[in-house]
Structure formats: C-alpha cells, structure tokens
C-alpha cells in the first residue's frame, strides 16, 4: 500500500483552478520530487496533505489515514516544512525545539535527548544556545528542519527546503535528506532546483496548471518523454565500415561522424539499442563504448510542461 495516496483531488481559489483531478501515489521510503512551474499547484497539494487546507473534492490518505477525517492523527505522523516560515524572537534554538517538542506532546523527560539527537542530525549542536532569530537563512532552514523532525514523523513534506541556500548548505541539505531516507522516512520535496532533485529523488511528479503530467521513476519518465535518443559510439578501428552499417539501420535519424566517434539521433527503444550493439560486435567492429546521453531533469521538465501563465 502506498504511503501517500491522492485520488481525484481538486481545489479552486475563486475561478482559478489550483488542482484539477490530481491522482498520485508515493511508496514508503521514496524521495519524491514534486516539480512544476510557479502556481502549478505544488504548495496547494502539500498544504492539503498537511491538513492545512480543505480540498474542494477528492481524497488524500497518508499511511492509510484520511487527511480530511483524521487531521489530528495525520499531524502525529507528518512533518511539514513550509517554504516561507518565521521564527520566534527571543528564543534560543534549544528552547525553540523544546516548545515544538511540547507542542507535539513529547514528554519532558524524553524531550531533552530527542532535541540532542535532532540537533546532531541537522548539525546544529554548536548553535543550540543561540537565538534563532539571529541565524542566517541556511541556519534557519536547518532549524526548521530540526523542528520538523522533532516528533520523528514517518512522512516529511518539504516545500522548497533548499531555496535561498548557498551551494555548501544545499549539498549538506541533500546529504541530510538521503540520511533521512535511509532511516525509512518517506519524503515529498518540492523544488525548482531540478538538477539537485534529479540527484536526490528516486521518483518524481511533474505538475502544471493543477494537473499531474507525469509521475514515476526518473528513468521511466525520461523514456516516456523523450522521442529522440542521443547515442554516442566510439570505435577503435573500422570507422568507415561502422558508418556504412549505421546508415543501413532503420531508426537512426541523423549520423554525425568525428573521426572514430559517432553522434547519433535515433528513435530506437532500449531493445533497439541492444540490437545495434549486437550487430556492431557481430561485424567484428571493436566498440570502445556505446552510451546514451541521459539528458537532465530540466530537459524532461521542459518537454513535459508547456510553460506560460
């Protein structure tokens, strides 16, 4: 059973349709990247899942619990980090975490050790006695993540957690999320920084104008999305023979030769690429390598979404 399950979710803001019959499933232990242009409906989805917003229609379940019917139960297993959050003036980090710990009904006896663990996990131990309001943006993000983890939630909803962070802080955040995933948490993360999501997430969903355009494993989506594959072949010898062979194969659209290196545009599927490799080897052509240009999440995003407001 999926950890997060969304069925026919719809939400309107006046005449504006924020979510239009959204269906989505995220398995336990996944790091799911939620991608979409501004105003696509990412934050609305996250806020509905986090019980902060009522949908117009449709259902959403987390760990089998209906978010509309049992919000209190949902809050127990959910950690939500909003994209825009504030901190309390005059509170030190340990006090800030203690307050949220108490707000999540963690007994005072256990709270101190949990706070220590969370501080260690987010690498904030040295800042425990400093005022949160004086922290830099990156520190505040980490403090908020620490607050989100305080009640050991099964599911994390992170809305743009890396926005405004410097490169080092982003890398650290990425490592931290990987650690959390290894701890068995299911993470839904929305971000505009696609290159990082590509490294971090095992599944993604692309949303635009409130509709889910594609969802699944990154490789599968790329396969679905791309009509033309770019292949690169380098041979040690017999370049002319290779060129003739390639020209005779159906499905290769464009062949560009640079001495022993061939850049190909093809519409071959995965099986077709395997067959091509077999033919080259059977002809006795010494193939140095044959690789497919994987492309990037940006390419997928651009080809799936239409853009415009």
């Amino acid at each position: 059973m999926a950890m997060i399950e969304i069925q026919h979710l719809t939400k309107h803001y006046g005449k504006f349709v924020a979510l239009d019959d959204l269906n989505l499933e995220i398995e336990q232990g996944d790091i799911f990247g939620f991608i979409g242009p501004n105003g696509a409906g990412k934050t609305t989805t996250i806020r509905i899942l986090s019980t902060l917003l009522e949908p117009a229609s449709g259902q959403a379940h987390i760990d089998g619990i209906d978010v509309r019917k049992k919000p209190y139960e949902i809050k127990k297993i959910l950690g939500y980090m909003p994209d825009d959050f504030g901190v309390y003036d005059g509170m030190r980090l340990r006090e800030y975490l203690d307050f949220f710990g108490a707000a999540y009904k963690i007994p005072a006896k256990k709270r101190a050790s949990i706070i220590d663990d969370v501080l260690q996990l987010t690498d904030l131990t040295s800042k425990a006695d400093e005022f949160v309001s004086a922290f830099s943006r990156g520190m505040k993000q980490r403090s908020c993540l620490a607050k989100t983890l305080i009640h050991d939630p099964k599911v994390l909803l992170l809305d743009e957690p890396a926005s405004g962070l410097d490169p080092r802080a982003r890398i650290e955040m990425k490592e931290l999320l990987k650690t959390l995933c290894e701890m068995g948490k299911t993470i839904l993360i929305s971000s505009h920084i696609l290159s990082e999501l590509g490294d971090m997430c095992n599944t993604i969903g692309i949303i635009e104008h409130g509709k889910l355009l594609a969802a699944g494993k990154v490789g599968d989506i790329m396969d679905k999305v791309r009509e033309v594959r770019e292949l690169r072949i380098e041979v040690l010898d017999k370049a002319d023979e290779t060129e003739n062979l390639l020209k005779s194969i159906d499905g290769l659209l464009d062949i560009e030769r640079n001495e022993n290196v061939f850049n190909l545009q093809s519409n071959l599927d995965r099986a077709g690429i395997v067959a091509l490799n077999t033919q080259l080897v059977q002809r006795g052509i010494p193939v140095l390598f044959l690789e497919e240009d994987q492309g990037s999440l940006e390419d997928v995003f651009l080809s799936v979404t239409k853009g415009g407001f």
Partner: protein
Amino acid sequence: MSATISKKDMASRFPAWGMIKRELLTSLRAKRSVLILLSFMLLAVLVILNEWPNSEHIYGGIKAAGRVSRNMVVLLSGCMYIGCLLFVPAYSASAIVLERERSTYDLLRMSLISPLGVVFAKLFNAIGVFMVIILSMLPVMSTAFFLVGVEYTVVIQVFILTICAVLTCACIGLACSAILRKSITSIVVTYLSVLLFLIGPLLFAYLFAVAMATFSYSRSLFRVVENIGEGTSPIWVMANVLDRGAQLGDFVTCLLYHGIVVFVCLGVAYWKIKKPPEPAKISQEKPIDDVKVLKDRRMGFPFYILDPLKRKKPIEDSRNPMMVRELRWGLLNRGTTLVRVFYVAFLIYFLAGAIASIDGRSHESMKNWFGIQIVLTVLAAPGLIANSLTKEYELGNLDMLRMTLLKPREIILGKYTAGLGALSPMLLAAVFSIIPIIFLGMFNYGAALVGYGTLLVCSLLSISIGLFSSLVTKQTTISIMISYMISIVLYLGIALVLAWFNPLWLGNDDYAMYLSPLLVLEMVLYPRYSSNILYVKWLWAMCAWLLVSAVFLRVSLFLFYRNKMQDR
C-alpha cells in the same frame, strides 16, 4: 512649447510624484477606506435624522430650532474629530515600518525618490482618506444652516481644527513609524503620543496647579499657565469652539502648537529615512547554568528579578505549551518594557488619583480615578492584543503552529493569557496607585470594589475583543482598527445611541448606561444615589459583560477552527 507640465515630465522631475500617486490611489481604492467613509456617512445621517426638528421644536420657536442646529453641529463635529483621531494613527503608524517588515524599504531607499518625497508620499497616503471624509462631511454639516443658530465661523473653525488634527496625528505616526522597528510598537507609541499631544498641555497645566497648591500659591502665575494649557490643548479648544466659539488668540495658539508638532515630526521622519538604517543587534550571550555565577549576578544587580541569562526550564508536561511560550518568552523577555509600562501607568494613575481627590467627594473622586484607569486600559488593549494572531501570520509561524498537536483551544487560551499578561503592568499599577486615595481619606470600600471589578471586566472584555479582531483579518493595522471600532460600539455606542433614542421598552434612559461597561460606573458611583440596589444592578451588568467577553472568546475559537486564515 506648452507651459503646462505633462504627467510624464512631472514624474521625471519629481520622482516622488509617482509614489505619492500610487500611495493615494492604493489607500483610496482599499475596501477599508470605503467602509470607513460609509460608516462616517451613515453615522452622520443618523445624527441628522435624530436631531432634525419635529413638531415639538416648532412649537418651541426659534430658540428651540437654534438649539437643534447647534446640537447637530456639535455631534457631527465630535464624531468627525474623534473618529479621525482614532483611525489616523493606525493608518500612519505602520507606513514606513511596514516597508521595513516587508523588506521593501531598501528598494525604496535605492530609488531616485528623495527622503522628503518618501515622507510626503506616506503622509498623503495616511491623510488621503480622512481628507475625503472631512470634505464629504461638509455638505452634511451644512444642513444645520437650514436652521438658525449656527454661525459659519464655528463650522470653519471646526473644519480647520479637524484638518490640522488629522495632519498632526499622521505626522506623529510617521515619525514613530520611521524611528521604531516593529509595527505594533509603532502603533502603540503613536496612540500614546497622540493622547499626549491632545491632552499634554492640559495635563501640564493641572500638574502645575497641583504643584502650586502644594507649595506657594501664586494666583496670577497659575492663571497664565492655565490659559496657556487650555488655549493650546486641541481637545479643549475644540470643546470651546463647539461650546461658544474659541477666542482668536486660543485658536491661533492651538494652530501654532499643531504646526510645531508637525514640523518636529516631519523633521524626525526625514532625518531617520535619510540616515542609513542600522541592522538590529542581537546579543548572543550564552545562558548561564552555574548557580554560583547566577547568584553573584543577582547580588550584583538586585534588579535582576529574572536573570535574562538564566537557562529557562523545559516546558512542563502538564502545562499548555502555547501559554508557557507566551508568558516565559513572549512576555518575560520584554520584562524591562513591562516594568517601564508599570512605572508610567503608576505615575499617571497616581497623579490622576491626586487630581481627582482635589474634588473632595469620595465617590466622585474614585469614579473619576477609575474612569481614567478604565479608559487608558481600554485604549491600550487593542495595541497590545489585536496583533496576537495577525503577528503569527505575518511572521509565518501560524502554519507551523497549526501543524502541531496543539488544539485551537490551547492556542487561543495561550494568546488570551498573553493578553492578560500584557495588560498586567497597567492593572498592577492601578492596584498600587490607590495609595494617594487612601492617604487623602477618599477611600470607599464599595466604590473600590465597583471600580476594580469594572476595571477587571473591561480588561477581560478588551482582551477578547482584541483576540477576536486578530482572527477576522490578516493585517495587524486593520485588526487594531477593528478592535477600536468594536470597543467604541460596546463601551459607548450602544448605550449612547439608546440613551439618545430612549425607546419605550427601555423605560428610563438611565438603564441605557448599564449597556456600557464603562458608563455603568457613572450610574453606580453617582454620589447621591449609591445604594445596595445599584450595586446589585452593577453586579448583573458585570456578569452580562463577562458573558459577552466569553462569547467573543468562543467566536474567536470558532473562527480559528473554521476560517481560512491559513490560506496565504
């Protein structure tokens, strides 16, 4: 070549012009402006309809008609003047500080608009709506000229004084807004400064009178100071204008006083905007765990009743975390400010007690004294409480709070306790400042019970109103305005309107006073009529107002639970 300056030229020659235009358009287009204008007009029309002469007045002859027209002008002018004084500070006090909070202040400073341009643009924004209101009141008030008895000079003086008051209050708000870092602080300080501006000269004259009475009494000097005080105080001059027409000397002195305040405030605002802003300093001193060090500090600084560096205890399991946060961090971190508030309130109440006691009648003295305390508490409450939840929203903490396992009831009660805590210095000052009343032999147990009881009920009611207001809007400024409007209606409006119309079911217009938690004091502590029956009636009235307070609290809870405040 055309002699007139085109709009494009205007914008390029005076970069501030674009901002002035934008600010004016923004303020005039806002829904709240339309609402305020409509409310003023509705009130004015009600006054005219109620006061317009009927057959009894016609039989009363020209004198009765004259009385009616004067009543109309007095009521309309009073509503216009007091209304403007209540709303202008809320508009202007957040003008610049809000730019800082929204991080648009630096963009503004980086533009070609001069600091003076910014000051004037914000000034136009703050006064624009009120100028429209004042102008639209002109034809309404002119209906009094259909009757006899009103001189046009009185109407002109009223309008000049109101315009000047609006301008001055806006400038005070701008200065506070430029100096202070937080909108809520700016709003509170602005209201206090406006109060000081209005009654400052009078207060000075009375304090001088007290000093004179205590030491050597010089009648001529006292007369001079009294004249200056009364001639300068805007409230006093306005009252004189409406009563019998102010003397030209007093009128000019009062305008001069307005002018000086405007000049100083604009100067301060200009200087603060021109000066590069300093980043907020936060001391990162570590908390002290060592008991010995803490004890030494306490011995060295006896005023460290609560050492700011002493490590705070974790929140206990049995306690409401929201309540603990609000009290332990929200309130005690502002310990110094609270102590200052206590000192100022104590001083004001002490002096008020001393002045009220001059009268020599115990009931009357205590009534006046408690009246001042209640009015000040009711005036301060919206500024301290109406930001309870709007602040959380503006800071971006509300979503995180709602996502915790805290129940709405715990959040609302936490905020309510914080409100009570914020008012506690004023309430404590009220308790301690009874000393002069006791020493002067004016103490009366019954009156003290009624006074303190009324003060407590009014405080609880004001906190509920503030909390309710902070849940019906997302902006602190608007929340404060709503809070003041509800307070006016509950503390004065219903009772005065019913006393005016005196419907048959009410029987006696005295009963209308019980419909105000403030005016009920006037009935119960009226020297000649104080009796046990009145005390019982007062008790019933207080119970009813406590119920109203509970209803506001319940509705606040409902709104928190139901409304879509979380939609950003």
